[in-house]
């Protein structure tokens, strides 16, 4: 089982401390390609959460049978097989959702974050912990991509939630800036994604630096009590 402390630490790591996009800077290829709007970013993250939770639980359950020397090929085998199975099952059983999420699922294969979590966490931890790690790493990715996608479409075209009608047919995108806003193409093209991601990383570092300044950590206890050090 999992205790509260462990759960909190896994959640905090995934959402903030080890955020996949802002700290580990992993899986940038699909990240930059799909975050032209917020809905795309959220959808890719949802698909990633599913795959990451599944592959983490699979690897964590099998971790005692996988020899250390060949762990990478076995992990790749497991991840690739699971992504393909998820893709097939989605397509066959949840076709409406597949039409929305479907194009993102193959992209996950190219996302090294899945393999990274399998290698760094699932291979060393019990299945329940690994499942939560997959989910929270995905949630960390979700909010980052949502913010990045939202910024890109807002700066690029003055809209928010464009494409939401593809997911929830009654809803329509918000036009936040006047319709004659000329748009800033740079934000929608890949360089804009890099620039905005850079800004987000800088913002996170700034927040952490400020937090560290405000609440100085308790002084480290001296190593030796007799003061000889």
């Amino acid at each position, binding site marked *: 089982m999992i205790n509260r402390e462990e759960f909190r630490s896994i959640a905090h790591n995934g959402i903030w401390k080890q955020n996949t996009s802002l700290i580990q800077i992993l899986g940038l290829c699909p990240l930059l390609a799909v975050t032209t709007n917020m809905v795309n970013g959220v959808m890719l993250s949802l698909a990633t959460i599913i795959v990451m939770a599944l592959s983490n639980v699979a690897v964590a359950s099998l971790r005692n049978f996988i020899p250390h020397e060949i762990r990478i090929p076995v992990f790749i085998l497991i991840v690739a097989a699971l992504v393909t199975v998820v893709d097939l*099952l989605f397509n066959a059983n949840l076709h409406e959702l597949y039409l929305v999420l479907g194009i993102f699922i193959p992209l996950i294969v190219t996302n090294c974050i899945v393999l990274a979590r399998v290698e760094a966490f699932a291979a060393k931890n019990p299945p329940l912990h690994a499942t939560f790690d997959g989910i929270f790493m995905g949630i960390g990715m979700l909010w980052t991509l949502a913010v990045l996608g939202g910024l890109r479409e807002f700066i690029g075209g003055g809209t928010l939630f464009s494409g939401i009608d*593809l997911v929830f047919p009654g809803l329509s995108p918000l036009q936040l800036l006047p319709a004659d806003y000329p748009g800033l193409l740079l934000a929608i093209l890949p360089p804009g994604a890099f620039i905005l991601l850079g800004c987000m990383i800088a913002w996170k570092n700034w927040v952490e630096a400020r937090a560290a300044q405000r609440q100085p950590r308790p002084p480290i206890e001296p190593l030796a009590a007799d003061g000889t050090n």
Partner: protein
Amino acid sequence: MTTGAAKSASKKREPTAATMAVRTAAILFVFVIIFTGLLSGAYLWTKPALEASAAEEKMKLINEVLPRSAYDNNLLKDTVTLPASPLLGTDEATTAYRARKGADPVALVFEAVATDGYAGKIRLIIAVNADGTIAGVRVTQHKETPGLGDYIEPKKDKNKERPWITQFNGHSYASTVDKDWRVKKDGGRFDFIAGATVTPRAVIKAVRKATKYVAENQTQLYASQ
């Protein structure tokens, strides 16, 4: 002395390494078998559903360019193979679907490719009525700039009442001249959105060439195979 020690050590280690190799290979093999089995199982299990939805998808697309009420045959079964043609922009044979009402030909639904889009090929599905007029055009695949050139897709077009792609409806090869088939900026009759003219130019050219192809091959296209 040291070399002798090393030799005896390596002699001892060698069989261990070989067995290790065989063992890891065997384990890898077992994993491969299990996961290939899982994949094949998932594939076979989902295959009927996938085929059904692929056919449904195709029908949905065809319904967008040709109203369901216009014909009464199963056009997915009434097909003709079109060889690769520069007029269609295709580099391999494609399948065209023939819509009929009773015995009369109604329309031909086929694929065409605009090869000179802003970012690669733009794939189109076009329905041309038996009298040569265009019943409908839709973009099925493209890589044009999101938010700029993608208004060729009705879903992304801001003009929801009269999406850009519907401008072709009703035009025919015989009733127009090449000069009309340009964006208004170039002296033609088609609208475009400022900032993205390469995309509409490519689509207009591809549609024009495709109607020419149909006009030239009309009789063979509807002949029974």
